[in-house]
């Protein structure tokens, strides 16, 4: 069965997207990319040290990966737009993950400003993947504004709390005709699998892999979980029942 995820006209080889902000070194990132199978790698423009031979993270991202700069640090749509333009001008490609956060306490995205930035950047030809708080109306407006996918948070960023927004994400999966990528909050491979079983198109993970004791191995675990979750979704899970259904039922003597 063909099961390909296409975003911005590009067929992606993996449904696990990888964040890069919290690793113990940039040098480990290519190994995590390999073990996890991730093909879309997001990097904060604020962190890219273009001048440095050793510390420039771009030197550690394999050529066959899609670089997706993000607008971390943007407090409003205008700043996100400026960051996106700088990233493209610096040769970071056409993809942009919009992150507009004006709340440093919980790091929750500003949906309103995110829609504004999406509208501007989509018109400028960017492949726009906005990070958002799961909300149906916002998702519809993001689609209308030209987003190529929608990335609702599973839980506040960095919390590793899992798919706490499950019901809201499910509504987006059911209602929005765009890939829904669960971004932020997934702390364990089982939670990534849960999002995929629910029908998410992909997941984006950073903290859970980067801050584990063995990021390479944890990257592999997430990669496998995403595959398993997707396969389960496609297979169609059996119905959940309140009572056990024995193969030799107690009332079998009654006949049919």
């Amino acid at each position, binding site marked *: 069965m063909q099961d390909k995820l296409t975003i911005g006209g590009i067929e992606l080889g993996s449904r696990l997207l990888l964040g890069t*902000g*919290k*690793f*113990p*070194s*940039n040098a480990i990132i290519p190994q995590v990319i390999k073990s996890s199978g991730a093909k879309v790698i997001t990097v904060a*423009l*604020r*962190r*890219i*040290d273009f001048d*440095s031979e*050793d*510390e420039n993270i771009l030197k550690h991202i394999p050529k066959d990966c899609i670089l997706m700069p993000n607008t971390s*640090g943007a*407090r409003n749509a205008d*700043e996100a737009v*400026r*960051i996106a333009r*700088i990233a493209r001008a610096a040769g970071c490609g056409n993809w942009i993950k919009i992150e507009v956060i*004006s*709340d*440093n*306490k919980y*790091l929750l995205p500003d949906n309103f400003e995110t829609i504004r930035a999406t509208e501007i950047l989509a018109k400028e030809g960017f492949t726009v993947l906005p990070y958002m708080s799961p909300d149906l109306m916002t998702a519809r407006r993001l689609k209308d504004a030209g987003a190529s996918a929608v990335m609702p948070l599973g839980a506040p960023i*960095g*919390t*590793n709390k899992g798919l706490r927004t499950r019901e809201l994400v499910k509504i987006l999966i059911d209602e929005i005709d765009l890939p829904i990528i669960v971004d932020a909050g997934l702390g364990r491979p089982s939670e990534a699998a849960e999002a995929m079983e629910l029908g998410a198109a992909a997941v984006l993970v*950073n*903290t859970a892999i*980067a*801050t584990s004791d063995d990021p390479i191995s944890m990257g592999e675990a997430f990669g496998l979980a995403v595959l398993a979750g997707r396969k389960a979704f496609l297979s169609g899970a059996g119905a959940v029942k309140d009572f056990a259904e024995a193969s030799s039922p107690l009332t079998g003597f009654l006949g049919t």
Partner: protein
Amino acid sequence: MSFYEKYLEYRDFDFEEFASNLTDDYIIKVINKERINELEFLSLLSPKAGKYIEFMAQKSRKLTLQHFGRVIFLYTPIYVANYCVNQCVYCGFNISNNIVRKKLTIEEVEQEAKIISDTGLKHILLLTGESRLHSSLDYIKECVTVLKKYFSSISIEVYPLEMDEYKELVEAGVDGFTMYQEVYNEDVYGQLHLKGPKKNYRYRIDAPERACVAGMRSVNIGALLGLDDWEREAFFTGIHAQYLQNKYQDAEISVSIPRMRPCNGAFQPKVNVNDKNFVQIIFAFRLFMPRVGITLSTRERPEFRDNLVGLGVTKMSAGSSTEVGGHAIDSKSEGQFDISDTRNVEQIKELIYSKGFQPVFKDWQQI
């Protein structure tokens, strides 16, 4: 509302009685809570909480990893002038101290900037002595214009300014602000600041808020530890940081914990803040505000700094000099204080890697 009103709420609080009533069970409960309030934060600064420092360390490490990852941000100060009009009894730049005074020309600022930037550093903290006369707003802006060529993030630590002046600096390219209240105890503040505009406690305590209103992206505050009881000073620093973060959610608030170092002049710290006290403050800050930045300067000893990587600190200075023209100029002035960790940037970088953390040179981009 100003933070000063918050300060007044606790000014006459009986800190000693509060500490004497704390129980072991209470402290354990606080350490295990997901979110703690002001008085719970205060309890973590108590001698009783000192018994549970290992538990606090484990929680602090976990929270820091979760929110910041395995990274340490690096920066260094650039001192461009040490002229000062204040008489602060504990400071080497004190107007009554007979030291060599210097203010860099813009060309000299560029020479310094170039040498610092060759080390790979991208975040710079511009410092002047507190003299509007010698280091005018225009002079600071000229320095910023030069520094922008070499650094991706520019912070300032200068005398308190008006909100509109901070705005001018933001427009000129400054994204970070640092100001230490020095001592939150208003009576002690009055005794230590003998002359000069810095005597105005209220004007200084409101400066971080003016910086937030002006749109500074990161705002860093702190108390100079050693000037008064550290438990109270750390408490006021923490609730000041929380006040700012709650009111200005788009600013990144951080705290520094400068411990007094020997300097010119005969003043000795009133209070000894030992290493255990110091780390207890770091852990209490982290448990109170999981996302707050915590800065550790080269005032601290190398081996002590090494041990703190990963336990709560998020930002460290490297290759520091507190002298005006300390990197490039032959005729050096005297420093504000003696630094303890004299390792260069490369050595600090290696140290951080050896601890399983990534030294991050760049975490902002001028936009």
